[in-house]
């Protein structure tokens, strides 16, 4: 019986060698962690090379587990890699650094190697069935954000609201709800919504992630849900990538990203933003939309539909090297790195002379807002901005 490292190395062998044999590190200068730390041990190349070393028996997971904290899961390296760019389509190959990082993290947890911040976070999440994003978070308060909105529970379509938005940024889901109402789009809320499990999966706590996923899917099934609307890019990844992995073919829920839905409603004329919003803005492509899912047009469509905005766009390819630093659990274990990455992102916005950075990701908002204060640049959520222009601000 080979040891767990060996088995892991066998599973990742080919992928690791595909990178190891290139080894040129074209990915490096787009990696947000690498950009602020310049530490090559925390680069996609090293993440792959370590697997080769594990296969040789020169490294154990306990030697490297802490290195794998240093990844936001942004996916920039995967896109920038010539192996994805050039031979990818033909071989149906994409460099999979994000999955590899997740894999090593969960290998570590299985072997009892924990990162203190992540361990605490996951214990609290297990306790409350919600991520500890703010004090007083509990299952009873999961729908507090919707107070006074008169939303039903259940139905064919429901809106899933991530922990950060539900507890920390309630005006985001409120805006979404009011905009959808305005368009006459019917949806309900979930009966007993737990954390989607995505962050647990990202930090390596796979059993917990699965447990949460199973609960949520059972809840949807029980209420006859066919379609789940998601406003958070992280949830979108979890529902479109992790859940199908857990449940296979039987996962028959349609997952709809709210930004895409809103862009369609605007296109169809069912939503007509008309109140001018006098701001000079640029848009921050959330990593999980642009880089991981190739969704970059719809958010821009929504922005361009809002009158009064002066929009200084940065093309999506340049934004491959931008990140808020908030993803992949980095902010939990290394908040100082998240802050540096956010500062770097805000620096790019400042160069454009904007007064506002528009985001479409609740998780990015906290560190970006902190970084924006130093430069007097405000951070506004795209959904909220649209609600304002539609006259339904929460």
């Amino acid at each position: 019986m080979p040891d767990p490292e060996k088995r892991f190395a066998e599973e990742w062998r080919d992928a690791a060698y595909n990178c190891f044999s290139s080894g040129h590190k074209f990915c490096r200068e787009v990696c947000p962690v690498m950009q602020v730390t310049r530490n090559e041990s925390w680069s996609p190349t090293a993440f792959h090379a370590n697997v080769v070393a594990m296969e040789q028996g020169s490294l154990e997971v306990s030697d490297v587990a802490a290195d794998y904290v240093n990844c936001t899961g942004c996916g920039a390296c995967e896109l920038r890699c010539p192996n994805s760019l050039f031979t990818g389509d033909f071989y149906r190959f994409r460099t999979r650094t994000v999955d590899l990082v997740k894999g090593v993290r969960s290998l570590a947890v299985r072997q009892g190697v924990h990162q203190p911040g992540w361990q605490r976070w996951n214990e609290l999440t297990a306790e409350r069935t919600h991520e500890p994003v703010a004090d007083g978070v509990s299952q009873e308060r999961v729908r507090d954000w919707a107070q006074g909105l008169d939303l039903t529970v259940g139905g064919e379509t429901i809106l899933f609201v991530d922990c950060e938005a539900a507890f920390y940024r309630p005006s985001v889901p409120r805006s979404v709800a009011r905009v959808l109402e305005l368009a006459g789009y019917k949806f309900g809320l979930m009966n007993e919504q737990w954390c989607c499990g995505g962050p647990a999966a990202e930090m390596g706590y796979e059993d917990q992630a699965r447990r949460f996923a199973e609960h949520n899917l059972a809840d949807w099934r029980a209420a006859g849900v066919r379609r789940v609307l998601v406003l958070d890019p992280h949830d979108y990844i979890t529902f479109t990538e992790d859940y199908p992995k857990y449940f296979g073919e039987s996962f028959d829920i349609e997952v709809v990203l709210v930004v895409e839905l809103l862009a369609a409603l605007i296109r169809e004329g069912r939503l007509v933003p008309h109140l001018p919003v006098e701001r000079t803005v640029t848009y921050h492509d959330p990593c999980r939309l642009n880089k991981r899912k190739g969704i970059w047009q719809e958010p821009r469509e929504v922005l361009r539909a809002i009158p009064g905005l002066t929009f200084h766009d940065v093309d999506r390819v340049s934004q491959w090297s931008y990140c808020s630093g908030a993803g992949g659990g980095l902010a939990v274990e290394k908040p100082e790195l998240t802050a540096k990455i956010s500062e770097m992102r805000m620096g790019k916005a400042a160069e454009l002379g904007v007064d506002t950075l528009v985001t479409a990701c609740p998780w990015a908002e906290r560190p970006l807002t902190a970084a924006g204060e130093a430069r007097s640049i405000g951070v506004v959520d795209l959904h909220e901005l649209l609600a304002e222009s539609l006259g339904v601000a929460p």
Partner: protein
Amino acid sequence: MTVTLGDPVVEELRGILGHDHVLTGKADRLNRTRVPAPFPVHRWAERMPDLVVLPSSTEEVAEVLRLAHAHRIPVVPRDGGTGLTDGAVPLRGGIVVDVKRINQIKEIDLENRTCTVGTGINALKLNEVLSRHGLLYPDDPASYPCSLVGGRIGTSGWSLIGSRYGHTRDLVLSFDHVLPTGRVIHVGDGIGRKITKSSSGYQLKHLFMGHQGTLGIATEATLKLFPKPEAEFSPFWAFDDYDTAYRTVGQLARAGVATFAGAVLFDEWKVAYLRRDDEAYIPQPASVKALVCAALYGYEDEVRAGGGRLMRIARSMGARYLGDEISQGDWAARHDRYATPLHGRTRSGQVVPMSWHCEDAAINYTNLPAVRLAWHEIADRLRRASDVFDDWGMFAYTNGATGADYLTEIDIGIWEQRLDDAAWAAWVAAKRDLAAVALAHGGSISACHGSCREGEVDLVPEELGGGFDVMLAIKRAIDPHNIMNPGKYLLDRAYSDAYPDPDGAP
């Protein structure tokens, strides 16, 4: 001379650099031995440094070197770690000085058109900033996304558009350089940082470039800038045979068009390699056996005029223009087309991940065809002997606008997973043979990567003759204890009893 670092040294280094910037972990060290050139993975552990430091300033580098000098500890400078001749790979343990954190842009001088940067910066990243001022730092190797300024200095690298703007040695005006003793000097032309031509004293700038970290560490460099070109024209032409393509390249280079930035010649093996499932390569009829590309940079009106002339020359030679779309796409992909391991093939055609190894030489135009045949013969021998090797074809890049000499490279795919001592020995022997061919044809065994790797390094004394003895004398004078990147370039000979006397009598 293997040095084990005692704790006091580690503590001293932590005192200089702070705790977080002295790395002793196994993975930290393993990952500082890796360069893209294939290496015997089964002997990875032999190349480990004892520790890695991440300094953030010239002063910190100087203190590290002072310490290393006092304790006689080997020091290996590392920047991008993309060098192809193992320059940044430690051979004797010791300290890897990784300069990536020294990457600030200190000054952009719009009047004199220079900028001063930390040597840990990448040219692509630098150009993102410079472009806002309408400026360009035109050091453009195929490794543009990953190599860094310090490594460019350490290798005296080659820019794909060097015929127009010059290569690294021309583009770096001056730099702060930490000597192995820890003393900091500034090298360049004259005393100023931004002087481009001086006749005072010895020309030390060239001495402190391309030494592969054997003479110290460059920390802060002043670079020459150019107006960001308004227009770029990069026609690709197809040919039915190598010979016509070769003659066309010569004509293009000798035409003396001022905006001419370079020409590249791809032979039939290279064309076949690029055809392997490469999405960026738009399929060409099987009759296409060689490709030529030229690149022109400058103002719209001058590029159009120069481009017209090159188009006429190419047509008169029987070239078939591939059209704007293919040309632009292929030129834009110039940094990404190397090193796609999935293009590796065994003789039976099985796809296996292979590492890209590029063996380069500087060859006069007139000798290119002969060198090409001899090199492919060597590659063929390798391939016949073992499935570990594949022939990925040859490139030739013009150097100056005269077209006198070319960066000539043969790319060999190597199935690294299967390397063992026997395959490695065959590879090293082949490298030696490739280098010998270059010398036999009056060339240099390296035009850009350097030649301190196992195999070709054996021929360096032969290439340099008496110059190699001068190299030994300089090495001993500047690095009395042989702490800088020991074992490279056969420079250990400078410290042996048989060391030839620089006065002349060996």
